[in-house]
């Protein structure tokens, strides 16, 4: 007997049900990764409501999400069931005004990158500081 793929179904359902949904590491209030934090900052700066899913509690979430989206990294932003991109694309689109357009909100005046245009998206964490 084949197990129904409940995790994949749940992810697909979440994508279908939320016009703007972000799969991320951690939560919008407590992002657990610099890339997720930058993506949340762009969305929050535009004042666009979005749903968020933390992929960390179960590694299968990330695995199944990448299988659905054909995109290897986290975060992943979906708008109207379409993958918009990860941190790099969302940040580029935020700066160019395309993100506001995609979300159907006003671009704030004098918009700049959430943490500086050319700042490297330096990942948070301590794992690399000892090497």
């Amino acid at each position, binding site marked *: 007997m084949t197990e129904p793929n409940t995790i994949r179904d749940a992810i697909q359902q979440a994508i279908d049900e939320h016009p703007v949904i972000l799969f991320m590491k951690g939560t919008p209030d407590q992002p657990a990764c610099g890339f997720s934090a930058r993506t949340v900052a762009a969305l929050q700066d535009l004042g666009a409501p979005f749903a968020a899913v933390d992929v960390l509690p179960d590694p299968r979430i*990330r695995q199944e999400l990448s299988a659905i989206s054909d*995109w290897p*990294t986290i975060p992943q932003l979906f708008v109207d069931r379409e993958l918009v991109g990860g941190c*790099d694309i969302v940040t580029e689109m935020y700066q160019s005004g395309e993100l506001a357009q995609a979300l159907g909100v006003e671009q704030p005046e004098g918009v700049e990158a959430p943490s500086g245009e050319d700042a*490297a998206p*330096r990942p948070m964490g301590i794992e*690399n500081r000892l090497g």
Partner: protein
Amino acid sequence: MPQAEELKRRIETAIPGSAADVVDLTGGGDHFRATVTSPAFEGKSRIEQHRLVYDVFGDEVGGPIHALSITTKATA
């Protein structure tokens, strides 16, 4: 451990006519930023352009390559 030079070479080998600039963001050999210019990106969406770069490394992204930040530019 993957090195920036190795990643650059692999991208340039795999994507026709591309020029890649790869930086090791942390010096730890697992967080990289790649800026890739190629005529192969012409007419493709950002998602498709970035997928071309991710596809060079397959499962290594998320594995030994913990993070790969990508900027793509189409050139003729």
